[in-house]
């Protein structure tokens, strides 16, 4: 999708997105300093009843994003390896462990994600390394940085909403024991995400070229499909799909968790864990209803998603931060001290 706009310079636009990403981190850290309550309760803390209404919209946005990721995953699996498997089964395969994780507590999810990261990263790097040996042409990256300013800005905008997924830190930070380390952690996450994404796109462009990459539905899968280990181990794409599945699991469950927790906050419920099953069912059905075809799904990802999530994850936090700059607010440091888990 990115290659359609910025062609062989897509990887550079990802690196360039670090700059607005830094601004976003600055805004998020500022909001954390100026708020006593985790997100989305902080909206009510600062904006009163209007904030509570906006928080309700955020619940819907988090559910929408979880559905979008889930649908993308289902499309990916049914197109690539599980051609005849009913989508319902694929959704169940992902959401059953998801429900279990959310019901088990935030700590379980955090530990599972940690394990997944260490499995995901080496396998993903191996896949990229092997794929890049299949007739690579470094010249495909040339001419460097030759693109229109309009395309450049649009590409950065397309990337930014993915980077803005770190908005979940506005909630999770309040359960951290080392809140002073949050800015450094966010910075590390941003840079490593940008580097990993840029590297992946670079390998795709070097291996396939910009024209093929932009016309392909899943270019990373294409290069994984043509990868050959030691010249004779082929057909290894199910391994790539498994890696992808792990990453998608973390994405979907993150936003499911935030949706459940936000619902608890908005409606002043005692616990959020019992919301796991109804929220998951909502996400499952919505992922099926979100669009009738793959083409619609990609149109949503291309046009609607950056707009919706850009508005909620980038614009509103920035506006709130600007508001707080002019309206000093007394922060109760005792609240959300990081010693209490969201389950208590």
């Amino acid at each position, binding site marked *: 999708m990115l290659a359609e706009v910025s062609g062989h310079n897509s990887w550079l636009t990802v690196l360039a997105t670090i700059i607005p990403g830094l601004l976003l981190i600055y805004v998020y850290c500022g909001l954390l300093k100026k708020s006593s309550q985790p997100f989305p309760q902080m909206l009510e803390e600062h904006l009163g009843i209007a904030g509570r209404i906006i928080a309700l919209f955020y619940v819907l946005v988090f559910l929408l994003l979880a559905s979008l990721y889930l649908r993308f995953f289902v499309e990916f699996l049914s197109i690539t390896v599980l051609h*005849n*498997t009913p989508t319902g089964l694929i959704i169940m395969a992902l959401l059953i462990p998801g429900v279990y994780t959310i019901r088990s507590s935030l700590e379980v999810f955090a530990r599972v994600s940690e394990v997944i990261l260490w499995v995901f990263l080496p396998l993903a790097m191996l896949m990229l390394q092997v794929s890049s040996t299949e007739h690579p042409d470094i010249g495909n990256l040339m001419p460097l940085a030759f693109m229109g300013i309009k395309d450049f800005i649009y590409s950065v905008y397309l990337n930014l909403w993915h980077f803005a997924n770190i908005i979940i830190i506005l909630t999770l930070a309040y359960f951290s024991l080392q809140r002073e380390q949050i800015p450094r952690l966010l910075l590390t996450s941003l840079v490593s995400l940008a580097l990993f994404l840029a590297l992946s796109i670079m390998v795709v462009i070097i291996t396939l070229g910009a024209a093929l990459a932009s016309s392909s539905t899943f270019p990373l899968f*294409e290069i994984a499909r043509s990868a050959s280990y030691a010249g004779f181990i082929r057909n290894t794409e199910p391994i790539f799909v498994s890696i992808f599945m792990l990453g998608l699991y973390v994405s979907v469950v993150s936003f499911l968790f935030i949706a459940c927790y936000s619902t608890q906050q908005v409606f002043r419920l005692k616990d959020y864990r019992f919301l796991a099953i109804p929220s998951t069912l909502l996400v499952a059905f919505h992922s099926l209803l979100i669009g009738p075809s793959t083409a619609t799904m990609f149109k949503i990802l291309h046009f609607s998603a950056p707009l919706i999530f850009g508005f909620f994850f980038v614009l509103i936090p920035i506006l709130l931060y600007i508001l707080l700059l002019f309206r000093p607010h007394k922060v109760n440091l005792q609240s959300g001290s990081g010693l209490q888990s969201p389950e208590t």
Partner: protein
Amino acid sequence: MAKKFLITLLLISFLLLGGCLDSTQVGDTIVVLAHGWDTDGKTKLFSAQMALTPPREGEMETGPKFMVVSERAPSFAEAARNLSLSLPRLPLWSMADTIVIGEELARLNTNLFTDIATRNPRIRYNVLLFVAKGTTPSEIFQVEVPPEDYSGTALERIIENQTGQAGIYFPMNMKDFLFETSTSGVEPSLPQIILEGRGDQTKLKIQGMAVFKGCQMVGSLNEQQSRGLALLKPGAIKRTIFNIKQPGTDGPGILSDNIAIELTSYQVKAKPSIKGKDIVMNISIKAKGNIIEDNSNHNTDEPQIAKAIEQAAAQALRRDIESCINQAQALNSDIMGWGLSISRSHPELWQEIEGDWPEIFAGIPSNIKVEFKLIQTYLQKDVFPLR
């Protein structure tokens, strides 16, 4: 208790799934070795070479080792599916490593097969492509190529092996073909297969490269031109053999004047030199090689002789490259990728000339410099000393 019961029930329910719903038993499948795509002008002709089950251990091998099936339909997808009307097993399309394209289809429109090649998840980007010259893919699949069991597999081995032996042609896979088809400033070329002989003596042979322009095959390169093209593509071949006449001899060559040179490595750089709108392609090749057969009567120990051989070898390589460039310009097809090279080094100029590139390409002069270094003479220091 209820929780444990629920989990047990859930675990048992997974047994009912029997694995993936699209799972297939190996015994119900047949391995596809190669696909063939062709047309008769009205419908698309799809053919496939499939491996038959080998005899069990201890059994005599008597029957055929492969079968060739063909179908025709308005689309290749339908033709392939129609095979199920007569084939009792499910073909494993993704196992195929070779695709042979009929000349008629290649000349008609490559878009007729590029879409299925990119859309179908069962066709891999690393599958090798060939053009059936003067024959059909189906006829090529019928040919036996001992000691290989299947011509589909043999084609893959032949093209790979010759890059280090004869070193004339280079393999092209689907990804490279699609890249060159979809990227402006470069046109694809594919190795051609012909059939030689008749009846049981029929054998297949790689001969020439099919040259494409846009979405059509527009002509071919001969052996000399194909080697020239390979030399212009870094790493396309590992070694090649070519002949020169003994330096200092004029007139028609005789066998005793012949020196066979083996090229063992080469580096190529092609850079456009641009002054205003005047484009000249500067091609520089640095090659190394050995004397592998020498029927002349000179003394290669002498530096002047060695130098003369090096110059003659450089001249021979230069002739191959010039011949390739002349043919490509005559066919108006930028198979060398000069346009791509300009688009990378001078993107602003490329934006201006991209629309008129085929016409501009045909008139671009080239400045070819070849340096050849003689490295070894193998086990003989000099020519064999005759009494």
